[in-house]
């Protein structure tokens, strides 16, 4: 299955990028270049204007208009790239004046490529953990509600409705006010993962409940029950697996939603402290007309998210539907 292999490759690539960030990223997460705010990417060249061939090099950017943030390429200078030096995979030979900006710079003059790699760590781990949590809670609630039916079903489903309608922003605000002012990134991670898992669970619960409800009445389930299978065994071994496909698709949709939601919660102060990078806040900062018109490289986290979500989708979609009964 080409699709599935491609999918796995994309997911693995995302995770590898996140894991290898300290080596692969040419710059630290907070390295900034004041003369290069929103500077365009410095693409590596191998051929100069005269047609001569060289080891990969870059042309530096020079500020042409500060207020408009226009830059001109200085074609007279070739800055060679240094490989495997100082613990970095690749970097420019003149880091101070003409840094290697593979995906340009953001509005603080920070390297978008490096932040994208470091941001992958935050965003991937947070969204995966939160999605896993949402799956566990959602399946448990949906499974029990669908299996038990009646009052239990009603209570559980209304509780999940309650979570959906409750203004989550206020929960975050209220939480923020009782927490200490300075939060450790670890605390923020746990908090956000817990909030997302709880907020995401009802969506999974609803679908799982519908599936379990139906499956419960099918011949195989009735047969299993009459053979003396316990409730837990019936639910866990026979009924919940029927919702596998649904849950998998839900998760592929929750992951990008969580990545984006992280930026929303940082708006009420419940985000990762600066200068920790995340795809959500990077995209939020890029939500500006100038990103479309002049600085498209600021949207690269969206491209990264696309690659990740496509990968997940391919993995899920191309799984041959298994026979579970």
């Amino acid at each position, binding site marked *: 299955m080409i699709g599935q292999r491609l999918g796995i490759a994309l997911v693995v690539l995302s995770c590898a990028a996140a894991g290898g960030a300290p080596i692969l990223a040419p710059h630290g997460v907070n390295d900034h270049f004041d003369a290069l705010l929103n500077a365009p990417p410095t693409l590596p060249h191998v051929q100069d204007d005269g047609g001569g061939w060289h080891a990969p090099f870059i042309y530096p950017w020079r500020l042409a208009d*500060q207020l408009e943030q226009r830059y001109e390429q200085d074609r007279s200078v070739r800055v060679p790239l240094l490989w495997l030096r100082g613990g970095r995979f690749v970097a420019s030979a003149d880091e101070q004046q003409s840094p290697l900006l593979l995906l340009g710079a953001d509005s*603080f003059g920070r390297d978008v490529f490096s932040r994208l790699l470091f941001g992958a760590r935050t965003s991937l781990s947070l969204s995966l953990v939160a999605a896993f949590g949402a799956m566990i809670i959602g399946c448990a609630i949906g499974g029990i509600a669908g299996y038990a039916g009646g009052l239990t079903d009603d209570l559980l489903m209304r509780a999940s409705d309650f979570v959906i309608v409750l203004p989550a922003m206020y929960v975050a605000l209220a939480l923020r006010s009782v927490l200490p002012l*300075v939060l450790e990134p670890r605390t923020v991670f746990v908090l956000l993962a817990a909030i997302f898992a709880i907020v995401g669970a009802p969506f999974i619960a609803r679908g799982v409940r519908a599936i379990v409800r139906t499956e419960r009445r099918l011949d195989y389930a009735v047969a299993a029950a009459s053979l003396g299978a316990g409730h837990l065994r019936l639910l866990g071994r026979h009924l919940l697996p029927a919702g596998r496909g649904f849950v998998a698709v839900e998760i592929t949709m929750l992951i990008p939603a969580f990545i984006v939601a992280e930026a929303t919660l940082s708006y*009420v*102060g419940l985000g990762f402290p600066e200068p920790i990078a995340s795809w959500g806040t990077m995209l939020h900062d890029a939500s500006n*007309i100038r990103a479309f018109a002049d600085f498209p490289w600021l949207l690269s986290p969206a491209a990264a998210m696309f690659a990740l979500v496509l990968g997940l989708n391919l993995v899920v979609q191309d799984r041959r539907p298994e026979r579970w009964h």
Partner: protein
Amino acid sequence: MLLAAGVAIGAAVMIGVRRMPPAPAATPATLAGRGGDLVVSMRTEPASFNRLTRRDASTELVSILTQAKLVRVNRASQAVEPWLATSWTRSADGLHYTLALRPDVAFSDGQPFTADDVVFSFAAAYDDRTSSVLADSLQANGRKLTVAALDAHTVVVTFPEPFGPGVRILDNLPIFPRHKLQAALAAGTLARAWDLKTPPAEIAGLGPFVLSEYLPGQRLVFVRNPKYFLRDDRGTPLPYLDRITVEIIPDQNAEMLALEAGQTDMTTDAMRPEDYAPLHRAADAGRVRLLDLGVSYDADSLWFNLKPGAFAQDPRASWIQRDELRRAISMAVDRKRFADTVFLGAGVPVFGPETPANREWFSADVPQTPYDPAGARALVASIAGGQSPRFTLLTQKGRTSLERGSAIIRDELQKIGVVVDVVPLDGNALIQRFVSGAGYDAIYFRAAATDTDPALTPDFWFSFGSAHMWNIAEKTPATQWEREIDTLMAKQIASSDLQERKRLFVEVQRIFAEHQPAVYFAAPRVFVASSSRVVNNAPALIRPQLLWAPDRVAVAGAARPTH
């Protein structure tokens, strides 16, 4: 004559813009035709049509369009101009001002305007049950003014003590129609009057426009007030425009796109530095006119919690409230780099609360802190007593200049060995912590001044003031230098000799610079843009920059095509 002055200043400002396309800007004001309509965008809806109870920018705009005052401070020239009052005299003791009111003026509903309406407006602003937000800005040295009607067209305003700015303070009071609101004041329900459900016809005013339609969440439409009393110097009745439509566009990006695409004519606020480039392109294409108004009156500032005892249980108490720490911070920040990063180069370094824009009250004689990171490091080391200094800096989330500014402060202070934890909060949470006085170390924020005359911003300067950020509403001055500032400011306010007032104020600024209770870094240049058909702009540095005198704004050419 005053109009001519306004236009001259407007023209001077326009010349400052680089590569201005030849545009109808050159049209002399007097040639501007009467008629036409204007579409303006605003990000928030007014909270009420009642300026007595609301001070948000949108309610203020409604008031600017529909109400008139006794005098008007020309926001472009900072001069006090007659409006409903044609002239005034001051008594020998400086306490009584006798104002002659313009005769034959009527409210938009036809009722005549008399001295009773002025007396009523004061009563409304000072009414306890209304708890008007206007009351705060109508105080001379913390005490109320009194007003009496001599006859139908003469009022006497009495100050509790000599007051330097004089009638300038009357620019803070719109005149309300007694015949419409008297009953509400008597019943104690004035705060509820003129809410957003009020039919527009009920809202009578003396201003150049009247509200004709309000569509919640969408737009407000104002049409010419045919009863408006001013004429331009050719005798043309004002306002020039037939109609002003205020579109509510909550997102600033969408607001800029609408302006660029010609769907609106102007915004009611200054633009962000990052909007400069696209609007400049639109200006080059002749679609909009871009105005560089120069340096802003206000700058963001950093202040520490200087309330005595705020750090009593804190090991940092030995250094966190010391003058040396703030001086070190002031020395550690490269203000040039600050302006370059935060305002993309469109800003100037500032060293105190008055920016060079305030030509009357800014003084170059006030000492300016040099950039000296080595000195700053030594200074911090000398007070820290072996501790490694660390503090939290609260700032508001979502405001670019604050977020960027605090990031730079964090970076620069790291270089001198001070760790700053920047904590962005939502505005409300920030204010809550600030007001409680105990919940913060330091704040980076902008508290915009309401007037350029320091005597009209007493809440900032006096130790009892509510805008005395570092230690609000002190019962008695906590420090000797605050006591000195209090004394100097009291003298400054009471004096009516402008030169003496300036001298005293330089003295105040000196003391401020020495102790730097609030540290200032850079002030932005203010840019505004309007569609190229808008003429007669005498842009001001404060909101609404292009619309503070809506009666004089005009459009060139025919009525705008509907889109």
